[in-house]
């Protein structure tokens, strides 16, 4: 909503305060003022001039030499290039010394040898936006009506001394979609008297109901329809002040009839529509639902197909307007129009909203209908328009209004009590203060001591319950005036849940392990929605979930893995010459087992990561370590050790993964994720270098983690260490041998480490040597050598037997 302060000043005196101060007061009371716009700057050297003579320039076809009276002793000679300049016009003259927008300084000059002492201006040259300039002056100078005074400054005439406030209205404040509503608001905030327009019409001695009948069939969608008849109107420009107020409000002036309906729309918040009475081709207005497949050509010359959901105004047969949205082309007011049927109606907000949504025709009118107009202002707005048509279009207004009227105009009653208000706000207001606030708001009320029975005016459709009045009282009282308090009962203990604590711990671990936390989008593209899905998720046959109206194909499907979008981030970085990357993300995936989704999907937390490039980047001592499978595995082993959860890694071939460098991770024999290198072909496709990823089932980890923090005593007895290297076939897994050693060594073997893996020279083809470091310990006594020897020998024998191995000497 754009609010002209000159216009507003007609209803409330705001002349003694700066626009900035007013904007601040309004903002603090609940309507945010987004912008303050000064329409023009004071310019005393721009005045009204009278073109006394206008002759062709002797040396230039397109120029005229004018003698212009600007109210000084002598007329100014001005050379003018505008095509529409003519003798006898009253025009805008910038005298020498004036500065126009764009820092154009007006000086005495010679144009092709002829002296020119100023400039005759167009509206554009004064800085007025082209879209608000009446079409007749679009390509030339502006011409005033005759009644302006020569030599007068033009700012007031062109409303250039106006300031416009742009309101950012919340959806509830439909009342402020009208100048009168704004006036009520400002009068309440400033505690100023309010001057409302006086509506009086000199109706002619003929009855409107002889001219037209009004019937409403869709009574649920149109509880009020009023038709006014105004004949013999003279189509011409509307008065300047009206044009300028429309311009300030962002509406382009057209002609007096259209301008008047727009003016009243802005003043009362009530949209009106003027039909060319003679084009109705009937003496009837019938408001009904459209028939399916019925058509109408609207004012914008578009043929629109209607449905039974749309409300239409008809001439008894054919639609002549889309109710509250747009008029029909066939009954449009035009230059030759003389007789008018003026509609003032109340249309159901929901119905208008539906039609607007379908057609996309959102306008100043439909916006107001959608939010609900004031039932007590509908008829008056029609009368106001008639008054203006009488005055500014010489119209003859027929007596009365032809109407269908089932409109509920009753006011709501809300009870408020001083004590309850103070209890809810934490304030200490007196009943007198509350009464004063109601007076400022111009709400009627009955008071019995601390109890108020408030009649809420229908213009404030947003107020219906106690809490609404509470806000009303609080905002006029001033939110700033409420105290700062802490709640009375504030004794509970707040903690993170175990789950939340554990999630924080895991983040801390992953970060200390060198990973940066990433956040990626949940919505991904179709092909990514089926990639890098962990085996235990894939086993549940999830259906990818698509949103109905994606913004782009890149963000259409809910993710089933965090890995694809993480890889996208890797590629994004690589494209910016960042090659050493280590990211992790904790986030949800969305699993539905329904092909056609009907219920909320399972949202399950994953812990995923992607790494590439140098892990240790230390070039000058030749100590670089590139990211490889074992860097990633080391991080995960550390995580599971930190969480005290035993897991196993088994070689696996997963889609999109390098078949020889991928492992599925098992906990209690169930898969809970995977790690490995991205398949080289996928790396190429996604423009990645050698990249490793991991993906863990956060839910399984959170569920399995038991929070036991008991202390294990530090062993009192010395440990005994043994090293052994086995020669194994290449395809024997080092981990399998380790597992067997652990099993055989239990309970005395506390730790088994692999410390060397070798194949090549000195070993037979197809063999490798793997060396293990064993730590024996008994918590209860000092181990004896022969105890250890016995166990060690058994381990060697069994490993040799099981894996066809032998000890490397």
């Amino acid at each position, binding site marked *: 909503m754009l609010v002209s302060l000159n216009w507003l000043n007609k209803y409330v005196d705001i002349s003694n305060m700066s626009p900035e101060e007013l904007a601040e007061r309004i903002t603090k009371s609940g309507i*945010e003022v987004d912008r303050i716009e000064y329409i023009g700057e004071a310019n005393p050297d721009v005045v009204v001039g009278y073109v006394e003579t206008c002759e062709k320039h002797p040396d230039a076809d397109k120029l005229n030499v004018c003698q212009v009276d600007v109210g000084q002793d002598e007329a100014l000679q001005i050379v003018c290039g505008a095509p529409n300049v003519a003798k006898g016009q009253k025009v805008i003259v910038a005298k020498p010394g004036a500065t126009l927008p764009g820092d154009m300084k007006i000086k005495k000059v010679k144009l092709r040898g002829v002296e020119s002492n100023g400039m005759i201006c167009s509206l554009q040259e004064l800085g007025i936006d082209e879209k608000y300039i009446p079409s007749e002056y679009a390509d030339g100078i502006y011409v005033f009506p005759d009644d302006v005074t020569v030599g007068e400054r033009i700012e007031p005439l062109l409303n250039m001394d106006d300031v416009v406030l742009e309101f950012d209205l919340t959806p509830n404040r439909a009342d402020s979609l009208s100048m009168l509503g704004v006036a009520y608001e400002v009068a309440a905030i400033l505690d100023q008297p309010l001057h409302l327009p006086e509506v009086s019409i000199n109706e002619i001695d003929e009855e409107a109901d002889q001219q037209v009948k009004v019937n409403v069939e869709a009574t649920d969608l149109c509880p009020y329809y009023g038709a006014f008849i105004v004949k013999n109107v003279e189509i011409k420009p509307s008065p300047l002040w009206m044009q300028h107020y429309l311009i300030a409000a962002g509406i382009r002036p057209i002609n007096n009839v259209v301008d008047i309906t727009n003016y009243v729309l802005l003043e009362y918040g009530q949209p009106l529509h003027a039909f060319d009475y003679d084009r109705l081709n009937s003496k009837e207005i019938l408001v009904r639902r459209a028939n399916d497949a019925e058509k109408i050509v609207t004012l914008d010359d578009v043929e629109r197909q209607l449905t039974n959901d749309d409300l239409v105004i008809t001439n008894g047969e054919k639609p002549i307007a889309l109710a509250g949205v747009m008029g029909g082309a066939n009954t449009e007011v035009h230059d030759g129009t003389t007789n008018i049927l003026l509609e003032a109606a109340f249309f159901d907000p929901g119905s208008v909203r539906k039609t607007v949504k379908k057609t996309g025709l959102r306008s100043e009118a439909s916006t107001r209908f959608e939010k609900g107009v004031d039932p007590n202002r509908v008829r008056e707005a029609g009368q106001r328009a008639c008054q203006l048509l009488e005055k500014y279009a010489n119209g003859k207004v027929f007596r009365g209004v032809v109407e269908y009227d089932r409109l509920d105009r009753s006011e709501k009653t809300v009870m408020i009590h001083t004590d309850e208000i103070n209890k809810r706000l934490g304030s200490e207001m007196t009943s007198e203060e509350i009464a004063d606030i109601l007076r400022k708001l111009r709400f009627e009320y009955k008071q019995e001591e601390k109890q108020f029975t408030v009649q809420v005016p229908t213009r404030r459709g947003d107020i219906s319950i106690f809490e609404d009045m509470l806000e009303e009282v609080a*905002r006029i009282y001033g939110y700033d005036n409420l105290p700062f308090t802490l709640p009375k009962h504030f004794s509970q203990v707040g903690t993170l849940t175990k789950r939340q604590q554990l999630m924080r711990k895991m983040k801390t671990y992953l970060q200390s392990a060198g990973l940066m*936390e990433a956040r990626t989008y949940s919505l991904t593209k179709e092909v990514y929605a089926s990639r890098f899905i962990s085996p235990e998720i894939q086993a549940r046959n999830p259906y990818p979930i698509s949103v109905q109206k994606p913004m782009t194909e890149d963000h259409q499907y809910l993710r089933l893995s965090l890995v694809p979008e993480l890889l996208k981030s890797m590629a994004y970085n690589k494209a910016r010459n960042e090659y050493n990357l280590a990211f992790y993300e904790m986030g949800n995936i969305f699993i539905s087992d329904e092909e056609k989704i009907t219920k909320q999907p399972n949202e399950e937390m994953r812990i995923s990561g992607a790494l590439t490039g140098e892990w240790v980047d230390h070039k000058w001592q030749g100590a670089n370590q590139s990211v490889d499978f074992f860097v990633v595995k080391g991080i995960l082993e550390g995580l599971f050790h930190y969480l005290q959860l035993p897991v196993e890694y088994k070689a696996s071939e997963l889609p999109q993964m390098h078949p020889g460098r991928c492992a599925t991770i098992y906990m209690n024999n169930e898969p809970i994720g995977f790690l490995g290198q991205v398949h080289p072909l996928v790396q190429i496709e996604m423009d990645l270098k050698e990249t490793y990823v991991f993906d863990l089932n956060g839910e399984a980890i959170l569920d399995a983690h038991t929070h036991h923090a008991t202390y294990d005593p530090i062993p009192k007895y010395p440990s005994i260490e043994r090293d052994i290297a086995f020669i194994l076939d290449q395809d024997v897994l080092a981990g399998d041998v380790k597992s067997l050693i652990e099993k055989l060594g239990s309970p005395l073997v506390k730790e088994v480490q692999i410390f060397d893996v070798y194949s090549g020279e000195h070993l037979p083809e197809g063999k490798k040597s793997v060396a293990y470091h064993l730590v024996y310990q008994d918590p209860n006594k000092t181990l004896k050598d022969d105890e250890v020897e016995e166990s060690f020998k058994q381990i060697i024998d069994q490993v040799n037997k099981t894996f066809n191995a032998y000890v490397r000497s």
Partner: protein
Amino acid sequence: MKEKLEAIRKEALAKIKDIEEMKSLQDLRVAYLGKKGSITSVLRGMGKLAKEERPIIGEMANKVREAITSSIEEKQAKLEKDAMDKQLQEEAIDVTLPGRPVQVGGPHLFTHIVQEIEDLFIGMGFEVREGPQVETDYYNFEALNLPQNHPARDMQDSFYITNELLLRTHTSPVQARTMKAYKGEKPVKMICPGVVYRRDHDDATHSHQFNQIEGLYVDKDVRMSDLKGILNLFAKKMFGEEREIRLRPSFFPFTEPSVEMDISCKVCSQKGCSVCKQTGWIEVLGGGMVHPRVLEMAGYDPNVYTGFAFGMGTDRIAMLKYGVNDIRQFYMNDKRFVTQYHQA
């Protein structure tokens, strides 16, 4: 004999003085003080001396021995020190060469902010709740007093999956879910951080995915001044003690009265700048007193319980607090961006 001893002393001390190596010093020690050394051989001739002379010569011999010994020790210490100095000098490094890098990770900026806010509210007795991102229309809208066709649904263009399911447009459904879970029987004090979605085109200030943190306190005797008090505490802890807060009336379907909170602009010290759009104030969050219909629908009797709720955009808070000027940075994971904030 005296002369002999004196000559030995002189000779030995002179030699020690010239010695440069430890080995020579050891040899010298043997040559003069050893069993076959010079002094011993002189003392062997003691028997030829007069009885009364013997102690004198003995004492003198001891003095010479001591003098040589102490001189050797002195020299030894010096040589050791020289050797150490030499070694240390050889071991010197160029301390301006870079250290061995430690691979350092770090949290996302959102994690910083969310944990800071969580900790602040946990300190005031709040719990942290979570809720589903794919929500039902009921919890996302209706339970929050946004029935079908409510004009305020205009403000929320949503990603629907079916007519009943959508990606939540705010974290507010968690309010309704938490109240339902508490069955109208006990106070609710919670905050909920989370991801939300709206159908916006991604640009510098809009993102189809963003984050919110929502707070709710429902109890007996909760007043609007309590909301002011809590928000004031929050704003000062989060943005600095010197910041002022201002509450303005606003509108949300799920609160009445509703507020919007501004904090004073620190960029321009409230003189007006582009960050605060010349107003001196920056909008940071919305809130209000929980609408009685919302309480009622969640099973709380609005005649017994009142409450306040507030919500803010995590992304927006992050942008304000750290001066980030493009919201997409939070989701691109540009290394040059994320590594800047690890110490935040």
